[in-house]
């Protein structure tokens, strides 16, 4: 397996700057997954220095427990990204071919159909049925080019994000275009699952594809696409923003108003890929504050201290063996203790994991989880 890792003329130690680590342990101290897993990220950074130990490390189940929330990277005083050591170990497993069937199927699906959900490419835009969606053409200039995300395009529970956004954009007269079924996975989960080769190919293909469009900027619906484009696509020729940034902008311009309100106590859960990794904290709150009657609460662990929902890092396809309480359940209990009636999110993965937690805890009567676009769609009166 190691031969693969050495193929880029860099040792593991060099690639992940392991000698830069001072073993202070802030990474492990901050890692939310330690609450339910044996994962000790500091220890991995230490052990990975011994190249002969890499194969053994790659066989440990806990390398798949990391959710790629980036807390370790945010807290590292030396500016290292400890989680990437785990991704490097995952790469060794992936390149040996002996990976979990669920991971194998998701990666093969991205390769063949451009999405990890084993859905046909030709059905990617089926969510648009019955809606007036403007489709972007590469040769026609458009201000906002929308990138939907595989999960939002295919999962019936979260398609509402895209549907309500289209209605809002049409009503507000925004200059926009959505991509047709030529849109392919941004590779966020491919990267964190460690499929280096496939990720490289995706970055190359998507850069070429997206650069063809004459758009002022790309607007993503998922924070995962947002962060992936901003961090891993150096040759993209246009800026990438998250849709909550666009909404905040439209509010500032007075282009968004709603007749209805929502007399509810709402707490916003910062998605790791939007907050910790993207630095976007205020815009989603700005949007929620505009909802008449809503009372906005704050988690004790908010903004860069937000607790991960365990939806990222490829965890949609790898189940953690631990039977201890899921972080999403911890989060929902925190929300209940606050007296929140709605946990608002701005990420399809957070929506799915937190909603599952509400169900498994039996809190459906008292509270619900909703994506911001879902709430805006319920305000009625439209714009």
């Amino acid at each position, binding site marked *: 397996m190691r031969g693969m890792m050495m193929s880029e003329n860099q040792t593991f130690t060099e690639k992940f700057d392991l000698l830069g680590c001072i073993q202070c342990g802030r990474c492990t101290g901050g890692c939310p997954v330690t609450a339910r897993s044996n994962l000790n990220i500091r220890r991995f950074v230490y052990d990975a220095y011994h190249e002969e130990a890499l194969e053994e490390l790659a066989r440990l189940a806990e390398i798949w427990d990391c959710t790629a929330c980036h807390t370790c990277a945010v807290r590292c005083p030396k500016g290292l990204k400890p989680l990437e050591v785990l991704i490097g170990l995952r790469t060794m497993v*992936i390149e040996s071919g002996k*990976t979990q*069937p669920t991971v*194998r199927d998701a990666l*093969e699906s991205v390769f*063949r159909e451009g999405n990890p959900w084993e*859905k*046909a490419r030709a*059905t990617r835009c089926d969510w648009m049925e019955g809606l007036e969606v403007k489709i972007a053409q590469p040769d026609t200039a458009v201000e906002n080019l929308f990138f939907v995300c595989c999960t939002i395009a295919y999962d019936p529970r979260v398609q509402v994000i895209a549907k309500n956004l289209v209605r809002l954009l049409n009503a507000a007269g925004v200059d926009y275009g959505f991509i047709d079924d030529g849109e392919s996975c941004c590779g966020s989960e491919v990267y964190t699952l460690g499929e280096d080769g496939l990720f490289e*190919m995706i970055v190359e293909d998507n850069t070429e594809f997206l650069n063809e469009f004459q758009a002022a900027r790309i607007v993503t619906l998922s924070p995962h696409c947002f962060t992936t484009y901003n961090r891993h696509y150096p040759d993209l020729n246009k800026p990438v923003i998250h849709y909550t940034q666009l909404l905040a902008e439209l509010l500032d311009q007075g282009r968004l108003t709603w007749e209805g309100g929502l007399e509810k106590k709402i707490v916003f859960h910062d998605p790791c890929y939007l907050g910790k990794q993207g630095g976007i904290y205020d815009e989603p709150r700005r949007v929620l504050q505009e909802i008449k009657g809503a009372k906005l609460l704050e988690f004790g662990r908010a903004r860069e201290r937000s607790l991960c929902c365990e939806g990222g890092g490829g965890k949609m396809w790898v189940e953690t063996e631990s039977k201890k309480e899921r972080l999403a359940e911890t989060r929902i209990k925190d929300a209940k203790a606050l007296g929140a009636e709605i946990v608002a999110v701005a990420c399809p993965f957070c929506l799915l994991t937190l909603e599952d937690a509400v169900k498994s805890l039996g809190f459906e009567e008292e509270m619900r989880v909703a994506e911001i676009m879902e709430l805006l769609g319920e305000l009625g009166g439209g714009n």
Partner: protein
Amino acid sequence: MKTFVCIKYVPDTSEAVVKINAGGTAVDSSRFSFDINDADNYAVEEAVLIKEKCGGTVTVLSIGPKESEVMIRMALAKGCDDAIRIEDERIALYDPLMVAKTLAGAIKGQEFDLVLTGCMASDDGQMATGVALAEYLGVPHAAMVKKVEMLDGKVKVQRELEGGLMEVLELELPAVLTIQTGINEPRYAPIRGIRAAQKKELKLVNLDDLGLAASEVDSSASKIVLEKLYIPEVASTAEVIEGSDADEKAEKLASILVKGGLV
């Protein structure tokens, strides 16, 4: 050890809306995703496992369109050595005997020890190609194989029968085995492996290259006529059980099941 593994590129129709083409004898596949037939994927893995254990080479054999080369490259990335893709619109693909005769035409004249196929194709479900292939090659076969053990000049296999029964057979080589799903856990073909496999030979041939006359494998040779495909009308026999509470509904449901002799 020289192994051939025969694979098929099939549409995933599990979730898609299936529409019949105007001619009535083909399905509109424009909205389907295509992939290696599930059982064939296990056959590829088994062929590679045998090669890893006993040495030798594995040749992938497939009848299919240009698009199916992705599937073939993935098999090559997993450890198969070379591949032959047969493309010829004259073959009566709806008839497994014609398919088997074509595959046999590509294998005959070459030395081989084993031919593996999936036990069934998920699109037409005939379960006949592998067995017919053994007949055309004049070698023994075992179908629905769940375990393979290579012996000297022989292969010992376990076949899955109904009711969880297993049958153990010993076959003289060369032989054809049709592989049942679950025999192993197919590996992942990493993209770097697929790229590296671009260097492996993938030969494209037609019936003329194989020295087969079209009249041996076309619709005139087939004793089957594909009349039509159709989607059965949905009969409206669903009944919504009404009731004031779960107990009442459960009672009604139970009485329906009892009356119908279902419990």
